[in-house]
């Protein structure tokens, strides 16, 4: 009883609140039933029964509206709403369901045999609750069936609409004076209707929702101001036409044009969307008003877009910023006619929505579309008479020349065609063509400008000349190559933006639904089917990403292992190198496998391919495989390591890098030689620095045969002892041979580092030579041997006298300085000669 009382009180409290609504709404909703006492299951069942009835009604309506695209669209929404109602109805029983379940759990199961029997009350309650549970299940089941039906019906409608779209274009409406008369009557009716509806709504809103309306309007203004100031500050430099620039570069003009179309249009669109959302969420709009308002906003945005586009391309007042080469006069006229066309189209579209919202006769829509098509046709004909063309380099202020003949013919033909189509009754087609000329044309021109600017930015060196490029170069100290790459990236980005914005726009224009485009895009990224193969872009991208990630992790692990663990453990550099290389290859392999798996490529199918190819690979890639295996052996066996001085065949030098296929050896002349690993494994490799860096140096010494060999040996050993060669093994001297002229020795000594051998040899040779000079050990015999001459004493005296007289002559006049004085040879000094 108390609950009933409370409900009554609650109702009494609510009634005054409901009163204005009841007073305004034509039929007050039956909200007077007390909801507290009602059973949710019964309610849900009732709702479902209603929904089923409605679905049946809708099915009939859809059959009737098979030819009416707009009606079908509305019905589809209703059908979808029914499906949701079914879901909501069964969701509303959930609370009760949970209560029942909880209570049933409390009561527990039916007692088994042998257990004490339970009381009658509990038994009864369990039975009642179980019944209720079954009823809920049944209701949910029927809701489920209903939702399936609704979904199927909704799909049917979609199919119908699609076929309609292709068919109604070519449908013919007879245009007779009666029809026109009827249309005029309907127009008058619609005008009155519109006045009444809008007036009623305005009065209602002003009287009862004034705060909401004012709040929505003021919030919209705030949003608009924020958008304007932020947009102006952020995008100002790229959309404003800088007055300082006298002759802007083509790229600058393109960029300014493109962005001055896109950014303000997006801002205006955002503003319109925000306004509409605010009005909607403040409940200011009535269901019959809201489509009109939304269309009005949409049409305004569209109109703004077209006029921004024509202003950007034609720049009627700024000839130097014009993208096309037309005369001033032509540009002004073209801009006006394009705006007029867009206006006619927008009005037609808006009035069409008004007709739909007010349920006006179809004939009115036909008449309006006919007028719009004729107007657009006339404008096209007018455009064909404009004289905008200019010769290259001609002053834009001149009068201009007519269009090229083909273009003017095309314009005129389209104009007359539109008028003819509208007059003979193909109004749908005429309207469609007229709308496409304006809207698709506008979108395509925008896309074209975007693509042009993308291409212009992408050409070599173009980005560096733009304002942004110069600023970036100054700010980040970018080089020419980096700037060029940035330009390329910018160009690709512009292409992407253009396609992402433009293509869906055109598709939407042609009557595709947002859902279709979304699902296409989704499919494009998740699953592209070619025959039985399905490719997933997202998968491939994820695979690539994982592979790169794997590589990065591997590199990091390599560095960490090498630089932190192995350095501290004082591991041999060769081992370090091998471990690092092995870890690197293992990481790359693993990352590759993970990437391939993530890309959705089945590894088992790869195995099949690998199996089939292995024979071919075995033959064809024999060398590479052999080198690869050799590389692995090199890494494991380590006959040489990086930095070793090796000799392989004719190649001698330091090992720079051991990779899996080949090893790099740098010769002493700094030439890098890539030696395949199999050569290093199969051939003989000399390594000067394998186990230790010990090396022996040999210095051959030849002295004059007249010297004492023991003295020379002793001297050489003494010299070696003064030099930093190893004492153990100690230096030794070998007496290699002797001949008539020389004694040949060889000094052999060991050095700790074979890399120092050359320097040490030089040092030793210098020291030996110094010592030889110091000890006056002759390196060679006299320049000419002494020849014994036999003569009689008479001749000897004569010769002596001749020599004496000659000496006297030389003493009297000084000898010419150029002539070398022959060295006096002591007779009998050398007998060996």
């Amino acid at each position, binding site marked *: 009883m108390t609950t009933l009382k409370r409900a009554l009180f609650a109702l009494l409290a609510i009634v005054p609140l409901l009163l204005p609504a009841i007073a305004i709404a034509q039929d007050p909703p039956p909200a007077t039933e007390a909801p507290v006492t009602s059973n949710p299951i019964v309610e849900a069942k009732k709702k479902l029964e209603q929904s089923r009835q409605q679905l049946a009604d809708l099915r009939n309506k859809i059959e009737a509206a098979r030819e009416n695209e707009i009606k079908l669209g509305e019905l589809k929404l209703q059908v979808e709403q029914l499906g949701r109602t079914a879901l909501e109805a069964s969701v509303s029983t959930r609370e009760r369901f949970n209560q029942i379940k909880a209570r049933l759990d409390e009561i527990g199961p039916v007692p088994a045999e042998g257990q004490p029997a339970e009381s009658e009350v509990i038994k009864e309650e369990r039975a009642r609750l179980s019944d209720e549970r079954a009823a809920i299940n049944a209701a949910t089941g029927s809701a489920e069936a209903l939702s399936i039906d609704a979904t199927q019906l909704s799909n049917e409608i979609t199919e119908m609409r699609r076929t309609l779209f292709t068919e109604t274009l070519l449908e013919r409406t007879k245009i007779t004076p009666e029809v026109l008369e009827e249309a005029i009557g309907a127009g008058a009716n619609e005008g009155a209707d519109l006045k009444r509806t809008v007036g009623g709504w305005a009065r209602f809103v002003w009287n009862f929702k004034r705060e909401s309306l004012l709040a929505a309007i003021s919030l919209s203004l705030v949003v608009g101001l924020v958008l304007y100031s932020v947009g102006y500050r952020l995008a100002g430099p790229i959309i404003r036409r800088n007055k300082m620039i006298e002759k802007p570069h083509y790229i600058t003009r393109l960029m300014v044009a493109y962005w001055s179309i896109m950014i303000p249009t997006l801002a205006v669109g955002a503003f319109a969307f925000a306004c509409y959302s605010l009005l909607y969420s403040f409940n200011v709009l009535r269901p019959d008003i809201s489509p009109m308002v939304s*269309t009005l906003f949409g049409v305004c945005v569209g109109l703004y877009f077209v006029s921004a586009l024509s202003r950007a391309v034609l720049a009627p007042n700024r000839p130097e910023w014009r993208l096309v080469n037309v005369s001033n006069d032509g540009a002004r006229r073209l801009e006006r006619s394009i705006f007029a066309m867009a206006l006619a189209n927008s009005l037609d579209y808006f009035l069409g929505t008004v007709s739909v919202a007010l349920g006006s006769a179809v004939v009115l829509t036909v008449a309006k579309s006919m007028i719009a098509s004729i107007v657009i046709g006339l404008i096209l004909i007018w455009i064909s008479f404009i004289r905008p063309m200019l010769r290259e380099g001609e002053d834009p202020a001149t009068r201009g020349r007519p269009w090229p003949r083909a273009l003017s013919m095309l314009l005129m033909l389209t104009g007359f065609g539109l008028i003819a189509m509208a007059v003979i009754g193909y109004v749908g087609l005429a309207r469609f063509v007229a709308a496409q000329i304006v809207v698709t044309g506008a979108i395509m021109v925008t896309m074209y400008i975007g693509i042009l600017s993308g291409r212009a930015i992408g050409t070599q060196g173009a980005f560096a000349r733009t304002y942004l490029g110069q600023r970036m170069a100054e700010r980040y100290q970018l080089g020419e190559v980096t700037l060029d790459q940035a330009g390329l990236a910018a160009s690709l980005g512009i292409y992407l933006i253009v396609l992402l914005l433009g293509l869906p726009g055109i598709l939407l224009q042609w009557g595709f639904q947002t859902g279709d485009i979304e699902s296409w895009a989704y499919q494009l990224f998740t699953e592209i089917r070619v025959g039985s193969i399905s490719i997933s872009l997202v998968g491939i991208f994820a695979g690539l990403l994982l592979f790169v990630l794997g590589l990065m992790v591997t590199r990091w692990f390599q560095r960490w292992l090498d630089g932190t663990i192995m350095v501290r453990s004082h591991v041999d550099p060769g081992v370090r190198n091998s471990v690092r290389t092995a870890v690197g290859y293992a990481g790359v392999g693993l990352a590759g496998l993970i990437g391939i798996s993530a890309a959705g490529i089945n590894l088992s199918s790869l195995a099949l391919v690998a199996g089939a190819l292995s024979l071919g690979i075995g033959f064809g890639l024999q060398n590479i495989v052999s080198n690869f295996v050799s590389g692995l052996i090199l890494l494991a066996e380590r006959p040489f390591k990086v930095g070793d001085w090796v000799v392989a065949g004719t190649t001698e030098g330091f090992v720079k890098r051991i990779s899996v296929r080949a090893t790099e050896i740098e010769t002493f002349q700094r030439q890098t030689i890539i030696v395949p690993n199999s050569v290093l494994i199969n051939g003989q490799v000399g390594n000067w620095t394998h186990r230790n860096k010990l090396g022996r140096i040999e210095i051959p010494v030849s002295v004059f045969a007249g010297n004492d060999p023991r003295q020379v040996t002793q001297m050489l050993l003494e010299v070696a002892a003064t030099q930093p060669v190893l004492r153990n093994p100690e230096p030794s001297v070998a007496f290699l041979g002797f001949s008539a002229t020389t004694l040949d020795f060889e000094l052999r000594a060991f050095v700790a580092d074979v890399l120092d051998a050359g320097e040490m040899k030089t040092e030793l040779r210098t020291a030996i030579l110094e010592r030889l000079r110091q000890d006056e050990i002759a390196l060679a015999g006299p320049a000419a041997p002494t020849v014994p001459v036999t003569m009689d004493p008479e001749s000897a005296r004569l010769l002596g006298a001749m020599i004496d007289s000659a000496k006297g002559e030389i003493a009297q006049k000084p000898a010419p300085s150029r002539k070398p004085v022959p060295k006096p040879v002591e007779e009998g000094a050398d007998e060996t000669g």
Partner: protein
Amino acid sequence: MLVTMLLMSTTIAAPAFAASITNKDGDSVIVTIVENGNRTELALGAGETESVCPSGCFVTLPNGDRVALNGDETVEISGGSAFVK
């Protein structure tokens, strides 16, 4: 108009949360899910959790109970019946 359409499409495409179903039983269970007019069967191993139907669906549980989900609930299955949060 184009822009409003684009903007609207973005709001429509805003991601909805999916309902999650968790099997708290020791054995695996099979639940039937009806979503967008399609009937699918979902097998859940012991302790497994699956995300289903972002935009609402009907679920038939092993014990024959049927529950309707808006798409943002958490469902726990124990003893063949469900507890919806």
